[in-house]
């Protein structure tokens, strides 16, 4: 669905931020982009969205060349949720905030109302239409940002560190939402530092180091290779540590741990 070929980008034509990135993202996948600070993760998503344009290389969406696009063109196909909700909410009411994208994209009055309603419903914000975005709690603000991106009915959702600064309860809610969208067909590109999220939710993980694509595969392939993971400057997920501690083999998620523990208990009985 989304194809990147030899994407290169440097700041001021000097410091290379992205070096020949080639990558394919298929429909319905949750793709995590990981890497240390400064590895180029956010730059990559910004280029996909058209906020920045690559110095050279090709970018294709469903066969169409989008290498030189601008964000306003991409808004119909890709929704971008920035890391800091305070830097992307600007309307006077929740309703206006979510209606902004459909309005800018020329939806009809009726379409605007339905898509706003649906977006608020999916993100659990129904009833807050007339509240001011600035007065919401941080968790609700982030959900509002997601609703605002969804209202344009994009096929791809880019989430930049969506769980930063959230408490654990909100984090669980956000991840559950993400899972739900994906099950309904949304392709998700997730930039994250959190290895636990990658292990539990991502279908594919892409690791960047100093702008170079160092790994492109499944979380299992990555985390079952401790040397590779640590070599890329990443930590192993909690579940993997615990799996090792209890001698259960490679476990990526808490659920796998419980399952294997139960199996072991039954075996002993």
């Amino acid at each position, binding site marked *: 669905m989304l194809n990147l070929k030899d994407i290169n980008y440097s700041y001021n034509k000097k410091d290379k931020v992205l070096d020949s990135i080639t990558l394919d993202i298929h429909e319905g996948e949750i793709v995590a982009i990981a890497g240390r600070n400064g590895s180029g993760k956010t730059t990559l998503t910004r280029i996909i969205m058209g*906020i920045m344009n690559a110095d050279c290389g090709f970018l294709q969406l469903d066969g169409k060349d989008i290498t030189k696009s601008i*964000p306003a063109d991409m*808004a119909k196909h890709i929704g971008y949720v*920035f890391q800091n909700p*305070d*830097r*992307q909410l*600007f309307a006077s009411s929740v309703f206006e905030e979510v209606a*902004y994208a459909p309005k800018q994209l020329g939806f009809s009055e009726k379409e605007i109302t339905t898509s706003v309603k649906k977006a608020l419903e999916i993100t659990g914000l129904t009833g807050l239409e007339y509240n001011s975005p600035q007065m919401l709690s941080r968790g609700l603000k982030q959900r509002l940002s997601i609703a605002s991106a969804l209202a344009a009915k994009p096929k791809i959702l880019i989430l930049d560190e969506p769980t930063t600064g959230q408490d654990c309860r909100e984090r669980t809610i956000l991840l559950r939402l993400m899972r739900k969208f994906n099950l309904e067909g949304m392709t998700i590109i997730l930039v994250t530092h959190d290895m636990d999220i990658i292990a539990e939710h991502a279908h594919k993980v892409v690791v960047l180091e100093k702008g170079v694509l160092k790994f492109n595969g499944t979380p299992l392939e990555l985390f079952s290779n401790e040397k590779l993971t640590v070599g890329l400057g990443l930590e192993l997920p909690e579940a993997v540590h615990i799996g090792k501690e209890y001698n259960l083999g490679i476990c990526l998620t808490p659920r796998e741990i419980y399952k294997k523990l139960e199996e072991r208990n039954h075996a002993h009985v």
Partner: protein
Amino acid sequence: MFNFAALTKIILALIISLCSILISDSYVLFGLLIIELIVMIISGRTNKIGKAVVMLGIFSIGLYGIQLLCGSSTEISLISALRMIIMSYSVILMLATTKTQQITAALVKQCYMPYSYAFMVTAVLRFVPDILAESQAIREAQSCRGYRESANPIKRLMDYMIIIKPMVFRAIQRSEHMAISLEMRGFSRTSQRTFMAETKLKGIDYSVLIIAMLSSAMLVSKF
């Protein structure tokens, strides 16, 4: 070379501006302008202030033109243009060669300005880059939701209103945290505040000031 105290530089800027007001001989004014330009070049700050200098130069030429159009004589137009440029260059020079902390320390210690005012000036300058980044981030977020910049200037002004509101609201929320933090750091209990920045006038400051005052008195009385 420019290690004068901030107060000295402020006074020098004021002296030269005052001279430009009191003197009505365009040749002398030209002379003052040349002095300023020489100082600018020696100061080595030309890349920082170059653009402003050129813009103001163009503006003053424009001013000269407007004066002529409105029927004033060449002499008067020239004087008014020169006056404007000497005064604005004096301020630019003073700002370019002095650190903000030194200026505010001088204003508080030597000009007896209340400390809270000086603090506000440095704090404004500190927050400008951060708030600018925030405004650009909001603009970006809007583009990602389909916003396109309009050619219509009125529409563009209305579009700017959309960014201003969240910036103002953020500022209001942040002002509460900032006030709490300042209170905790003892800001309002300043009975005896000290200053790191050096403000004492040294021998060279006094000599420069005396020379400047004497020469300007001479020039003003002559012209």
